[in-house]
């Protein structure tokens, strides 16, 4: 993982990420202190199942796959996240452990947000904390909806007689 870039450039990058669209100046200033710009090469892990969820990522470029080891089935890829999306919310939920692993399947650039730093700022400024929570709730809702659709196995066969 490489870390680069000045704070001013990073602010501009953060402004352009959909997760932070419309965030107030004050909240952006609060957030920027916890942010760093990172790069992952293909095959490199961003997060590992069971490890401490001490950060989360705003993906800028590339693609990251969420994986889980399933006994008897090996390692399964259950979802990918790409540009404009968010990777990880376990940093917000005690005991702050990743439930999945995240590996770059293509070279990826992201903004890494330090979880402990962010949690402290959320506690210290509940307005900022609520803003973060509202935005993450949208991410969670989208994931829940997608997971339900995946569980439906909707591409399973149509009844014979239907034109397809």
């Amino acid at each position, binding site marked *: 993982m490489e870390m680069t870039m000045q704070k001013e450039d990073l602010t501009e990058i953060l402004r352009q990420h959909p997760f932070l669209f419309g965030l107030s100046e004050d909240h952006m200033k609060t957030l920027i202190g916890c942010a760093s710009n990172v790069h992952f090469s293909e095959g490199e892990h961003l997060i590992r199942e069971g490890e401490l969820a001490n950060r989360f990522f705003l993906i800028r470029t590339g*693609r990251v796959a*969420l994986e889980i080891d399933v006994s008897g089935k*090996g*390692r399964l*890829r259950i979802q990918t996240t790409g540009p404009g999306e968010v990777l990880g919310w376990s940093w917000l939920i005690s005991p702050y452990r990743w439930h999945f692993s995240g590996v770059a399947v293509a070279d990826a650039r992201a903004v890494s947000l330090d979880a402990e730093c962010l949690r402290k700022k959320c506690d210290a400024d509940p307005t900022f904390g609520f803003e973060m929570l509202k935005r993450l709730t949208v991410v969670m809702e989208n994931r829940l*909806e997608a997971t339900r659709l995946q569980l439906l196995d*909707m591409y399973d066969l149509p*009844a014979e*007689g239907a034109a397809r």
Partner: protein
Amino acid sequence: MTKEAYGAAAQQAADPMLIHPVTIRRALWETDDTFTLTLDLANALPDFRFLPGQFNMLYVYGLGEVAISISSDPARTSSLDHTIHRVGLVTTSLAHKKRGDVVGIRGPYGSSWPVELGKGKDICVVTGGIGLAPLRPLLYTILRDRDAYGRVILLYGGRSPLDLLYRVELEKWGNEHDVETLVTVDRGDTSWKGHIGVVTSLFSYIKLDVRNTVAFVCGPEIMMKFTIDELERRGLAPDQVWLSMERNMKCAVGFCGHCQLGPTFICKDGPVYPLPRIRPLLDRKEL
């Protein structure tokens, strides 16, 4: 009505229940449970014409019929492709057919994708599973006249990498015809480096010019409902969205009522509908 549409309508009107024997030119397995039959039309039905989105009734002699969308290029008149999911008695029998075997067909039936409506505009095709088959004739038609359209975006979702249809063509459309092709699967192993997630998640990676885009949607009904929600959320006007519905079909000409959906017969009035016409029916549980 276009010349082609008139030809198709006249052909069907001649005797809509008449079954024509045709010879299988090729049987190709696309996935573990989906195959494409190429039917030879040169001798049996030299004047057969169809429009993108229409379907035929395929008949296994002595066993029964099944409604299958036509998946080949409408400009190719010597043969006809049907991509078929092996699911029941008739489709399993069709799956055992080989080159030289004879099956019956009647058709074409139903409404078609309004290709002309998309001219000068961006095209967004959203599909999942075998829903790509009825959209393939639309894509062939658009790509033959590629300059007449703006961006062509194809969002395609499948169950797994092994369940994706027309993989060679998907790559070709992207590489040679400037089609922005985004493919996703519901589950994959570590060898799959593409997207994993539902097809609607692909909207995160494209930016639609909603005032100048026509969307064509075909897939499982639940997928289409979520796709419509996503298109509406992005501001696409309902009259710029078209979808292909499916219901159990028997007669294919609006007599038997098997495919009735509220006030409409899918076989005769559909399967392709403008969204405003079908939207009120999608959430009606009793239909």
